[in-house]
């Protein structure tokens, strides 16, 4: 099925120095030329267009780049368009984008083996593919022009969307589109050398900003409109694992506009002719729940269970070296530090939504699908269709941060079940939009797991580490999903321990063990996944170790660091933040560096304290090495946003439960970062010709530990139980 494995992801990455020279054939089987499937052709191309899987050129001279990934704000659509536009030598103004249909053969993520977006892999896996697609299209335009003009193709040049011959003929892409469509697709088109790039590494206008600044119609799934459409809002179980057993809907049905009430396994859906009656009537439902399999504990009890687990031996995580236990047993001094991380909701600005149309023979969905292949498979199975009968129209997503990347496609499944139930009850097929309210989102689970860490470190009489034994306890994200058999090995889910299985620092002995906790609360990847907690632990521990050794935190890291690129960003951030210069009174600094998803980010947080004792993060200086910077301004934007997203969470976000019921419900209780919380963020990019890696997530992990280290520098108190608001710092 899916090849969602770390080694596959590694295999898909070109080797370090060779990637710029690679040809299409070396990338591993992507399809450049294809007869387009019906849905794609219908949606994006007319007869006479130049229509290839990744590049369409219309007679009106617009070039449409087909985007195989979801763009939920991270800028991937612009990134992929940049690659095509550069190799094609198109004018930026003629570029448009459209999301590709669900088609695993054509549009799989080369790092995953399925169509999907995640792990900050979009640019890394597409870098050669989209450039090659652009280069192939250009070669076909040139071949068509040569044939038309009767000249040698070698005498033709292309610049800014204009094809010109040495003898003075010229044509636009639109003029040549129909002719170029008849040319053979070159198997290995010649790619530009880096010195020939006009957009890559420089700048390319973001393709979505104009539409997003004008409130354009139908951008997001939430905005989907259709004739005769019903809107469904569900009463969902008050406790995770609860299932509905029956309902009383007399009052709900009295609300004007309500059409139907349908029970599905995930809840009871009110269907209305528009959104407001559905929301209002949902609150009037009386539903009975079977909670025999539900989580009824409070988060305090769950936290204690996790902490207790870390007191016992767990499953060994690969990467250990030396005999840490023995070293600790004979150490001059031992410290034991317990960390507790809460559940976190993603809370993207656009709550979940999905529109389905199912007529018994085929189905169509409209939403910001992030794992198109799984969404298509899960919904086709429920609807009794083959996957090719399920069309997914991927829309822009109003954020995701991981929320829409669904191993179980639960929100597709729910929509499919509602549509199926309606049809089976004898109703005519109608489009149905399922809308999640903010309360549904905050209380809906799929959280960043609650996690406990225990770090036990032994020191010699000079404060130098002799051994570090580490334990992590959390519910696994992969276990119990379609990914388990590929993504878990010997009971270890890499997403639980990534970043703490081995450290980037040289230590005499180090070992990590993991416990997989069980709870019906569904958990999921949350922007930067395991690094959200392992980065915090590793980098606050490094400051503690530096203190034990009586060394400066930066010097301590640099002396022991194993990775040159991580050292590079540490040095750069230290220089830019004037690490060695004393701060004015009342200001404090902390530093942290985390490698995630193949990218290296170091951050220095500068903080002060308000009169009420809360932390004000004044400035975060960042240094980033994500390989070849494709769109430098987008890298800056993603790191700015990643810092804000991570900061908001560590300051005051936590999902808590009392007797299994979530205590928070909306932005008045799950407090988002606001304008007044936002520090100045300065981003410095390491110039690099290494293979490009991701940037959607890597800005997030270092900010929490950098701020925690700054608090420790100021107060001598190490925050180990998150969020900071629990300690009066927010």
């Amino acid at each position: 099925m899916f090849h969602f494995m770390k080694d596959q992801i590694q295999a898909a990455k070109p080797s370090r120095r060779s990637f710029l020279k690679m040809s299409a054939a070396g990338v591993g089987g992507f399809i450049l030329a294809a007869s387009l499937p019906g849905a794609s052709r219908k949606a994006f191309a007319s007869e006479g267009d130049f229509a290839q899987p990744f590049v369409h050129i219309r007679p009106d001279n617009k070039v449409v780049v087909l985007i195989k990934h979801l763009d939920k704000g991270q800028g991937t659509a612009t990134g992929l368009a940049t690659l095509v536009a550069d190799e094609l030598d198109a004018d930026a103004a003629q570029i448009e984008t459209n999301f590709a249909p669900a088609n695993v053969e054509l549009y799989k993520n080369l790092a995953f083996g399925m169509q999907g977006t995640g792990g900050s892999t979009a640019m890394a896996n597409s870098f050669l593919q989209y450039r090659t697609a652009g280069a192939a299209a250009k070669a076909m335009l040139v071949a068509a022009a040569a044939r038309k003009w009767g000249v040698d193709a070698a005498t033709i040049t292309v610049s800014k969307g204009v094809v010109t011959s040495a003898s003075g003929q010229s044509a636009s892409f639109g003029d040549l589109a129909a002719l170029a469509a008849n040319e053979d697709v070159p198997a290995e088109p010649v790619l530009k050398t880096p010195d020939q790039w006009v957009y890559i590494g420089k700048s390319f206008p973001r393709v979505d900003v104009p539409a997003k600044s004008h409130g354009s119609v139908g951008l997001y799934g939430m905005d989907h409109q259709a004739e005769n459409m019903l809107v469904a809002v569900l009463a969902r179980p008050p406790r995770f694992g609860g299932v509905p057993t029956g309902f009383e809907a007399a009052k709900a049905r009295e609300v004007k506009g309500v059409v139907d009430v349908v029970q599905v396994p995930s809840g009871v859906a009110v269907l209305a002719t528009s959104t407001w009656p559905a929301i209002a009537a949902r609150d009037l439902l009386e539903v009975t729940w079977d909670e025999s399999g539900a989580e009824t504990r409070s988060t305090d009890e769950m936290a204690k269970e996790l902490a207790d687990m870390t007191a016992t031996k767990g499953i060994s995580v690969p990467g250990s070296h030396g005999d840490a236990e023995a070293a600790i047993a004979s150490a001059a001094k031992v410290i034991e530090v317990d960390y507790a991380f809460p559940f976190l909701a993603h809370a993207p600005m656009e709550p979940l939504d999905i529109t389905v149309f199912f007529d018994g023979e085929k189905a169509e969905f409209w939403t910001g699908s992030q794992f198109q292949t799984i969404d298509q498979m899960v919904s086709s199975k429920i609807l009794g269709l083959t996957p090719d009968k399920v069309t997914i129209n991927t829309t822009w997503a109003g954020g995701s941060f991981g929320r829409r990347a669904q191993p179980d496609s639960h929100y597709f499944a729910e929509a499919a079940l509602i549509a199926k139930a309606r049809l089976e009850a004898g109703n005519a097929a109608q489009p149905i939009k399922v809308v999640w309210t903010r309360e549904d989102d905050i209380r809906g689970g799929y959280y960043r797991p609650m996690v406990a860490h225990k770090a036990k470190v032994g020191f010699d009489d000079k404060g130098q580490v002799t051994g570090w034994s580490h334990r992590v306890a959390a519910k696994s994200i992969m276990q119990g999903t379609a990914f388990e058999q590929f993504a878990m090995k010997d009971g270890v889910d890499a997403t639980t321990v990534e970043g703490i299985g081995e450290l980037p620092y040289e230590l005499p002995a180090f070992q990590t063990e993991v416990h997989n906790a069980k709870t019906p609360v569904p958990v999921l990847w949350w922007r930067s996944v395991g690094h959200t907690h392992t980065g915090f632990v590793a980098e606050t521990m490094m400051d503690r170790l530096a203190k034990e050794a009586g060394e400066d935190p930066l010097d301590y890291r640099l002396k022991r660091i194993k990775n040159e690129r991580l050292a590079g960003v540490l040095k750069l951030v230290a220089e830019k933040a004037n690490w060695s210069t004393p701060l004015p009174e009342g200001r404090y600094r902390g530093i942290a560096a985390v490698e995630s998803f193949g990218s290296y980010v170091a951050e220095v947080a500068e903080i002060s304290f308000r009169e009420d004792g809360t932390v004000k993060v004044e400035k975060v200086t960042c240094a980033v090495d994500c390989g070849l910077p494709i769109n430098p301004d987008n890298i800056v934007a993603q790191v700015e946003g990643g810092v804000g997203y991570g900061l908001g969470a560590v300051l005051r976000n936590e999902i808590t439960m009392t007797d299994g019921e979530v205590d928070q419900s909306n932005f008045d209780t799950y407090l988002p970062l606001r304008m007044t919380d936002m520090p100045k963020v300065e981003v410095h990019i390491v110039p690099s010709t290494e293979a490009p890696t991701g940037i959607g997530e890597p800005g997030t992990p270092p900010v929490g530990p950098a701020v925690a280290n700054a608090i420790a520098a100021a107060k001598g108190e190490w925050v180990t139980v998150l969020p900071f608001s629990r300690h009066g710092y927010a």
Partner: protein
Amino acid sequence: MSVSVTINGTSRIIDADPETPLLWVIRDELGMTGTKFGCGVAQCGACTVHQDGIPIRSCQTSLQDAEGTSITTIEGVSGKAADAVRSAWEELSVAQCGYCQSGQILAATALLSETPKPTDEDIDAAMDGNVCRCATYARIRQAIHVAAEKMEA
């Protein structure tokens, strides 16, 4: 029951429950989806529109409270401040996911209409109610300053 409201300069007679939040009238009855549903409880500002030039939360304003007033949405906002804001937004590539940006633009336009040269404190006060989960705040702040310069030019 029908209620009369002016939306983006056009007088509309809307036949809906007068208790219906203006947000859902704009989105579902009028089909203008630029105004966003983010929280439904006036905590995020994604649904910001102007009522007689003042930024309000349309999710907490009922249709009957809008009766007889002039409502401006992202689709209709125009003029010197709005043009400067949009231009600055594009110049600085402010939007990431973009879902909150209609509300941000309406809030920023109202601020600049009242205070053409806002300080950082003015910006904090005017914009703190508009949440951006992508945390584009730094660019929003910068874009408001850029828009102020554009208005002067």
